[in-house]
């Protein structure tokens, strides 16, 4: 049983290591890459913790974390791309 908790703590530590790059990163893209891997780490830690405690509610938190993380990444990526949402202006939608 405790091995799952050890893995959960390990993933949380990895998320902290990514946080170093999040603070230090010279450009916005660096920060966003670190933030993206950070929230995947956090959702993995949530999965492990949910199996450890045996309660399903932490899995919902993991799903929502992964979803919001990808929306964040897309948003910042498109913002850096000068807000151009379409590749071809003559496309039909």
């Amino acid at each position, binding site marked *: 049983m405790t091995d799952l908790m050890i893995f959960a703590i390990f993933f949380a530590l*990895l998320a902290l*290591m990514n946080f170093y790059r999040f603070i230090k990163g010279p450009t916005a893209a660096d920060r966003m*890459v670190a933030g*993206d891997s950070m929230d995947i780490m956090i959702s*993995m830690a949530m999965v492990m913790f949910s199996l450890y405690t045996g309660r399903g509610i932490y899995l919902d938190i993991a799903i929502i974390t992964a979803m919001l993380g990808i929306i964040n990444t897309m948003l910042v990526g498109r913002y850096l791309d000068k807000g151009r949402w379409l590749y071809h202006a003559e496309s039909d939608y």
Partner: protein
Amino acid sequence: MLRVIIDILIGIGAVFALAGTIGVIKMPDVFSRMQASTCITTLGVLGVCLGALLYAIFVMQHPSTAVKIVVIAALVLTTNPVGAHAIAKGAYQAGIRPEKKMETDDYRRDFDE
């Protein structure tokens, strides 16, 4: 026996996640860091989710937990490359270049000058 297999699978995921984290911290420029962080999102997530799936099916015997774990893995694996495209293209268009000049750079040749 089953617990050993589960531990090995999660351990593989943890090792690849550690490799990706080291890459994110130590790689020299944005694009290489992005390559390293792909390591986390593929085999790291797959290893952890496979182990967790086996645990949920055979130890906990709880179908909704297993289904949610499958949903997490599928969600991360399908949506993450889209974010990677967005960040890579956005970083390049915003003028972020690696310090050491890249030897082959067709993108700059075709679009920049």
